[in-house]
């Protein structure tokens, strides 16, 4: 069962520096893919790291169904595959399944590999994989424990355009067949609009929400599969560009009228 993810007053400060993030309050409904988009320094990766427990929030809370998140409830796909180079693909996927043993673990690994189309590559070592395959293994590793929350930290940024499209298709497939609340960090607007059911734009530092749209509610152009050429797709793309743009000064943005 997937539950609502509630972020309340989340603030992150590193040492004596000004806050990098927040205060930020967002509620993510169970399931669906939320894209968080923003420029470098807008705090999107810090937000994701706080959700994964890699950073402790300075203030505020992150609750899943009213209780703090436990590691086994989170899957995380990093910018780079970060596979353990000494483990085979199969063992890398099993890396996140510390609580499962024997047949149950094998089945979970096979299921995750099948979801990303890599069943045949289970015995290969990471050094034998292409960039796209390695990132798919990383996705399988994150999916294998069947997390309630799947966090994707710019997972396509290091891939070439063709592989990136393939990988996006995998993530879209996963978002439609895997019951998890997915959060995708990206700075690619097309990627956000192609994959997400909701788009949140951050601006910072300190990172704060400047736009928040549930896409399918906004336009029928956002039913899957999406068409980049659709007039509404292009219209939202322009609105998103405006939301992220800085005209002059730190606090002045063009999109003050947009729903926040």
């Amino acid at each position: 069962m997937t539950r609502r993810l509630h972020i309340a007053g989340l603030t992150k400060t590193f040492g004596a520096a000004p806050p990098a993030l927040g205060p930020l309050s967002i509620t993510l409904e169970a399931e669906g893919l939320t894209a968080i988009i923003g420029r470098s320094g807008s705090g999107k990766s810090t937000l994701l790291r706080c959700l994964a427990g890699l950073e402790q929030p300075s203030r505020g809370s992150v609750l899943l169904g009213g209780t703090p998140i436990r590691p086994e409830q989170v899957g995380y796909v990093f910018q780079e595959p970060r596979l353990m180079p000494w483990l085979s693909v199969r063992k890398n996927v099993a890396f996140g399944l510390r609580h499962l043993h024997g047949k149950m673990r094998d089945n979970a690994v096979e299921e995750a590999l099948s979801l990303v189309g890599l069943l045949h590559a289970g015995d290969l070592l990471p050094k034998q994989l292409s960039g796209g395959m390695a990132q798919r293994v990383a996705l399988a590793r994150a999916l294998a424990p069947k997390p309630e929350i799947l966090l994707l930290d710019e997972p396509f940024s290091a891939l070439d355009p063709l592989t990136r499209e393939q990988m996006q298709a995998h993530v879209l497939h996963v978002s439609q067949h895997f019951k998890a609340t997915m959060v995708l960090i990206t700075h690619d607007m097309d990627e956000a609009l192609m994959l997400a059911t909701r788009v949140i734009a951050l601006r910072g530092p300190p990172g704060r929400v400047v736009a928040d749209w549930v896409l399918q509610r906004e336009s029928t152009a956002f039913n899957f599969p999406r068409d980049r050429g659709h007039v509404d797709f292009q219209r939202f793309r322009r609105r998103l560009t405006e939301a992220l743009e800085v005209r002059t000064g730190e606090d002045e943005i063009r999109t003050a009228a947009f729903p926040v």
Partner: protein
Amino acid sequence: MAELTPSAAEFAAEERGEVPAASVLLPNAWRWPLGVILPAICVLSWQLVAVLGWVGADLLPSPLTVAQTIIVMARDGSLWSDIGATAQRLALGFLFGAAAATFAGALTGASACCRRLLDPMLQGLRNVPSLAWVPLFIIWFGIYDASKILLIAVGVFFPVYLNLMNGIAGVDRKLIEVGRVHGYSRLALLLRVQLPASLPAYLTGLRGGLGLGWMFVASAEMMGASTGLGFILTNGEEVGRPDQVIAAIVAFALLGKATDWGLAQGARRLTNWQDTITLEQRRI
């Protein structure tokens, strides 16, 4: 999803833009004799010097004389019993030294607190000359094997300790974060991420430790032993038999090289996951 043909590995290698390695200078079959050329030139030159009488046989016996000495020692069995005694001391010293270094290196590599506590003292001890330990070990453990094994263990300890500590401390933070995301405890992180990741550094330390072990076993046996290759050295000096001394040196060199080769082969198998360029891919 398209199937990868003819094999996933080959497909992935092709995607990465790799091509099968081929030497531009030497075919594969001709590569291994390269390492034999230089020693062969040295032996031939040595034989020439002996035959021409440039150095007296009482100082530098010819390679053939040394070979004859080795054959005689092998036939009467003394060579094998001395090699056996040396190998036993070395094996025990290596085992104890490497085990202690593994424990200390893992501790100081994984814990900053342990590192601050232990490392300054160990680094200080590392700089003590090996021979400085000899009188103390003889006083503590007598002149028999215990003091020799301990001296060898001291020699083996430091390269293994340093390499493992630095290997663990230098493990990519990004890999550790993967473990943290999956809720691994500090011990689980050490066992499942840091130790395997530092295996190449550890194996380098073991090879260095083994090399020092051979040096220390010679020193240990020369300080007072009635068996072992070190004994052949001191005995040869006492009875004025340079052929015997050189025979022992040759035995040390061959055995040292053989054990290092064995360890290197084992290391290569254990770290075949590393994405490094192979000798074959260096194209020479």
